C-alpha cells in the first residue's frame, strides 16, 4: 500500500512551514530538545514495521510534563499534527512519522516512580521498559503480567497505546486488564486522570477507551499498573503432532478439560525448523506442529494439571510429549518460541508478520486457507500461534530487493486478514491497526461503525491533529480500497456470526 499520508484518502493535512514551526516551538519551550536536521531525524523514520519509512518534519524529545504540555498547545495553535512514539518497537506503523508532523518521543520519561508491594502497584513514566517493571517488582515476589515478545525494549506507554498482549493473555489478560490508572494530556494540553488506584472509577470507562487507542485521543504521561504475586511454580509440556489439525483440536481439548494454561503456544513445521536451527531448543524438527503448554500456580495443583494435560494430549494423538525437567529446560523450550520471529528472519531476507485472531475452532480451516494462499502467491508462510487465545502470527517470507515482492507479501497478508474476518475473527489481536492495517479496517467494520469511531475521535480531538491517518480509515479510503475486500453480505458462509 501507499505508506505516505494521502490527503485525498486520509484527510487533508495542513502545510506549515518547518522553519516557522521550529522557531515557534524553540521560543515557547526553550529547554526542549528539538531535532530538525535530516541526519538527526533519520533514526526516527520508522518504528518496528521497518518496511514503512517517512522522515518526520521535527522530532521532539521532552523531559518534563510542562514541555509536553507546551508542545501540544503550540502544535494545536499552529495546526501541526503530532505523532507520539514510545520505544519504537510497534509492529503496525502506529508511530510512523508524518512529513508535515512533529514526532513526540516519550523515551526520556523512563523513571519508575514507585513500587508499592502492599498495594501491589507500580507507578511508572511512559518510557519505562516492560521488562524493567517485573525486574523492579521481583524483590517483593511480584511481577507485571503482560509480556509482549519485545518486552526487553518496548515501553509501558506504548503498551497502553497498543493494548499489548503476550504469551500469557488467556489467563492473565491484556494491558487493559492490568492497568489501573493513567495520566494523559489532551491535544489542548489539559491534564486528565483516567481510572483510579481503586478497582474502578466514576463515570465512563475512559481508561478502557484510551487503552489501545494508538495515540489518537491523547498522550499518556504516567501509568499505574497492577502487580501480581509470582506463581509458586510453572511447568511446561511440549507435545509434537504429525498433523496441524490434530494439534489445533488438542488446544480445545485442554480447555474443555477445565484447565486455563498460563501459556499455550503452537508452531508449525517451518517455524519449528527455523527456531531449532537458531536456538537449539530441542524441538522435534520432523513434527508438523508442536504445542507448548505452560501450567502455573500452586505446586500441588500444577502437578495434577500436568497429569490431566498429558492424558488429553495423548488422547488427541500427540506423537511425543516431553515435560521440561527443570527451570533451564523450561527456559530453553520458551526461548525457541520467543525467538521464533528472528529465527524465521534468518531463513529469508525479509518477513512480514500478521496478527489476526480467530475463534479457535476455525484453526484447521484458516491454516488450510493460509497454505492455499501461500501457494497462490508463491511465498512461504511460517505459522506461530498464541493458540490459547486464537491469536495467529503468520510470518510471510519475502525478499524486498526483488521487484514487486513486498507488494505481493502485503497483498497476501491482506488476504490472510480478510480470511480471519470471514471466519468471525479480527484483523489484529495485539499489534494494532496503525498505518499497516488501515485498509483492512474496511473489511472488519461497516461504514456506519467507522463513522461512530470518527465521532469518538471528534470528542477528544476534533481537528484530528493526533496521529492522523492511523487506526481508523476515512470513508473515502474504504470506498476506494474496501471495494476489493470482503463485505458483509457477499461473504461465503453467511451462517457464521459476523461480530
Amino acid at each position: 500500500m501507499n505508506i505516505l499520508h494521502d490527503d485525498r484518502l486520509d484527510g487533508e493535512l495542513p502545510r506549515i512551514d518547518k522553519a516557522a514551526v521550529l522557531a515557534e516551538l524553540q521560543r515557547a519551550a526553550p529547554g526542549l530538545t528539538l531535532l530538525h536536521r535530516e541526519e538527526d531525524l533519520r533514526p526516527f523514520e520508522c518504528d518496528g514495521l521497518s518496511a514503512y519509512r517517512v522522515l518526520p518534519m521535527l522530532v521532539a524529545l521532552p523531559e518534563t510534563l510542562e514541555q509536553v504540555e507546551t508542545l501540544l498547545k503550540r502544535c494545536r495553535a499552529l495546526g501541526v499534527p503530532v505523532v507520539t512514539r514510545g520505544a519504537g518497537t510497534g509492529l503496525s506503523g502506529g508511530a510512523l512519522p508524518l512529513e508535515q508532523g512533529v514526532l513526540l518521543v516519550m523515551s526520556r520519561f523512563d523513571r519508575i516512580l514507585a513500587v508499592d508491594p502492599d498495594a501491589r502497584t507500580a507507578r511508572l513514566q511512559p518510557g519505562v521498559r516492560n521488562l524493567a517493571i517485573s525486574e523492579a517488582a521481583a524483590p517483593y515476589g511480584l511481577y507485571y503480567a503482560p509480556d509482549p515478545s519485545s518486552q526487553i525494549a518496548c515501553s509501558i506507554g506504548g503498551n497502553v497505546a497498543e493494548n499489548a498482549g503476550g504469551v500469557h493473555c488467556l489467563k492473565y489478560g491484556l494491558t487493559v486488564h492490568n492497568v489501573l490508572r493513567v495520566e494523559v494530556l489532551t491535544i489542548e494540553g489539559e491534564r486528565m486522570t483516567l481510572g483510579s488506584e481503586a478497582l474502578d472509577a466514576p463515570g465512563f470507562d475512559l481508561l478502557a477507551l484510551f487503552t489501545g487507542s494508538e495515540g489518537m485521543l491523547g498522550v499518556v504521561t504516567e501509568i499505574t499498573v497492577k502487580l501480581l504475586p509470582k506463581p509458586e511454580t510453572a511447568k511446561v509440556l511440549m507435545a509434537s503432532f504429525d498433523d496441524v489439525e490434530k494439534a489445533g483440536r488438542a488446544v480445545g481439548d485442554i480447555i474443555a478439560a477445565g484447565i486455563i494454561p498460563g501459556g499455550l503456544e503452537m508452531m508449525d513445521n517451518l517455524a519449528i525448523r527455523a527456531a531449532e536451527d537458531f536456538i537449539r531448543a530441542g524441538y522435534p524438527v520432523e513434527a508438523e506442529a508442536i504445542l507448548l503448554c505452560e501450567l502455573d500456580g500452586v505446586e500441588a495443583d500444577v502437578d495434577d494439571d500436568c497429569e490431566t494435560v498429558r492424558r488429553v494430549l495423548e488422547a488427541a494423538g500427540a506423537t511425543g510429549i516431553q515435560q521440561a525437567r527443570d527451570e533451564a529446560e523450561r527456559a530453553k523450550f520458551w526461548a525457541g518460541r520467543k525467538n521464533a520471529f528472528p529465527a524465521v528472519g534468518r531463513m529469508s531476507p525479509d518477513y512480514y508478520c500478521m496478527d489476526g485472531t480467530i475463534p479457535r475452532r476455525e484453526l484447521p480451516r484458516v491454516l488450510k486457507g493460509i497454505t492455499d494462499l501461500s501457494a497462490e502467491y508463491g511465498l512461504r508462510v511460517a505459522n506461530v500461534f498464541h493458540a490459547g487465545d486464537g491469536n495467529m502470527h503468520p510470518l510471510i517470507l519475502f525478499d524486498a530487493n526483488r521487484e514487486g515482492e513486498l507488494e505481493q507479501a502485503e497483498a497476501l497478508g491482506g488476504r490472510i486478514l480478510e480470511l480471519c474476518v470471514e471466519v468471525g475473527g479480527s484483523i489484529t489481536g495485539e499489534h494494532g491497526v496503525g498505518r499497516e492495517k488501515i485498509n483492512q479496517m474496511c473489511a472488519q467494520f461497516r461504514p456506519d461503525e467507522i463513522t461512530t469511531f470518527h465521532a469518538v475521535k471528534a470528542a477528544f480531538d476534533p481537528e484530528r491533529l493526533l496521529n492522523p491517518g492511523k487506526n481508523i480509515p476515512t470513508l473515502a479510503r474504504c470506498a476506494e480500497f474496501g471495494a476489493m475486500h470482503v463485505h458483509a453480505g457477499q461473504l461465503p458462509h453467511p451462517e457464521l456470526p459476523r461480530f
Partner: protein
Amino acid sequence: MANTATPPRDHDASEALAERIRRADAEGTPLRIVGGDTKAFYGRPVQGRILDTTEHRGITYYDPVELIVSVRTGTPLAELEAALAENGQMLGCEPPHFGDDATVGGMVATGLSGPRRPWAGSVRDFVLGVRVINHEGREQRFGGQVMKNVAGYDLSRLMVGALGSLGLLTEVTMKVLPRPGATRSLHLDMPLPRALEKLAEWGRQPLPITAAAWLDGALHLRLEGGPSSVAATADRLGGDELRDDFWAALREQRLAFFSKEDPRPLWRLALPHHTPVIDLPGVADGDPLYDWAGTQRWLRSELDDKTIREACTRAGGHATCHGPHLGSGGTAEPFTPLAPVVAKYHRNLKAELDPKGIFNPGRLYAAL
C-alpha cells in the same frame, strides 16, 4: 411497560427496538431503558418513555471450548448462569442480581461485580464485544467473539458501567471461566487491623483466595482452585468452616448489615488495596463491611456526601451512594463528581454519540 405474557426464551426484538429508538430520536423524546428493573436504585432517576429490553432474549452463541458466550441483553441473568453451569462454567465477575428478573443488559450497563472481582476481574474485564443500537437506530458491532481484538477503539468496554447513556446494548459477548475444582470457605475470628494486615501479606503470595470480607469481628475467606491447594491452604490458615452460600448473601446484599429496615443511605467506598481505616466522624472502625479484601467497603451513614467523598478521594478512591434516591433521604449525585476536564470530555462523548440526549439522560450525571 410490563409484558403481559412471558416472552419466548429466544427472540430477536432488535428491529422493533431500533424503530422505537429512531422515533424517539426524531421526536427528541428521552428513553428510560429497562430490563428486569432490579437496579433502578443505582444512579439518578430518569424521566423518559420506557424502553423495555426483555423481549430481546436468548443465547445466540455458546461454545464452552472457546470459553465464549454471546447473549442478547434482555436475557435473564439467571438463565445465562444456568446455561454456563450446565457446562461447568461461570461468569468470572460473579455479578449481583438484586432480584429474580435481573438481565444481562443490566449487569453490563451497571458494571457491578461480585466478591470474586479483585482476583478474577470485573464485568468490564470479561466483555469481549457488544452490539449496540445507536441514536439513529442502527445496530453496530464492536469488539468481537475472540479473546484478543485491538481493531478500532474499545467501545465494548466503554459501554460497561455507562448506565445505558451511550446507546442501547442489544447483545454482549463475554469470556467465561471453568468453575473451580474445589471450594472451601473459612471464618476466622480476627480484629480488623490484623485482618487488613493479613490480607496485604497474603495478597503478595500466590494463594487460591477468591473472596475476602471482614464483618462482625471475623474475616471471611473463600478458597478456590485445585483440591490439593485448597485443602493445603485451608489447613494452613485455620479457622472454622463457613457455609459457601455466605458469598451469595453478601453479593445480593441479604446479610443483616444491608437490612432494608435501616433508613440510612448505603455507601460504597471504592479504595486502593491496603488502605487503612478511613476516618469519618461518628463512624467506628468496625462499622463498615469490608469486602474485596478491603477495596470495597459498605457503609450505612447519614453523613453528608461531601464528607464521605473527601475522605475517600484523599485515600485515592471514590464513593457511590447505592440509595435511596434524593427525596427518600439519599443524595442528589450518587456518583463522585468528575474533575472539570474529565467532565468536559464526558459531555463531548455524550454529544457525539447521543446528540439529542435520548438514552437514559441524567442517570449517570445530570449533564449526561
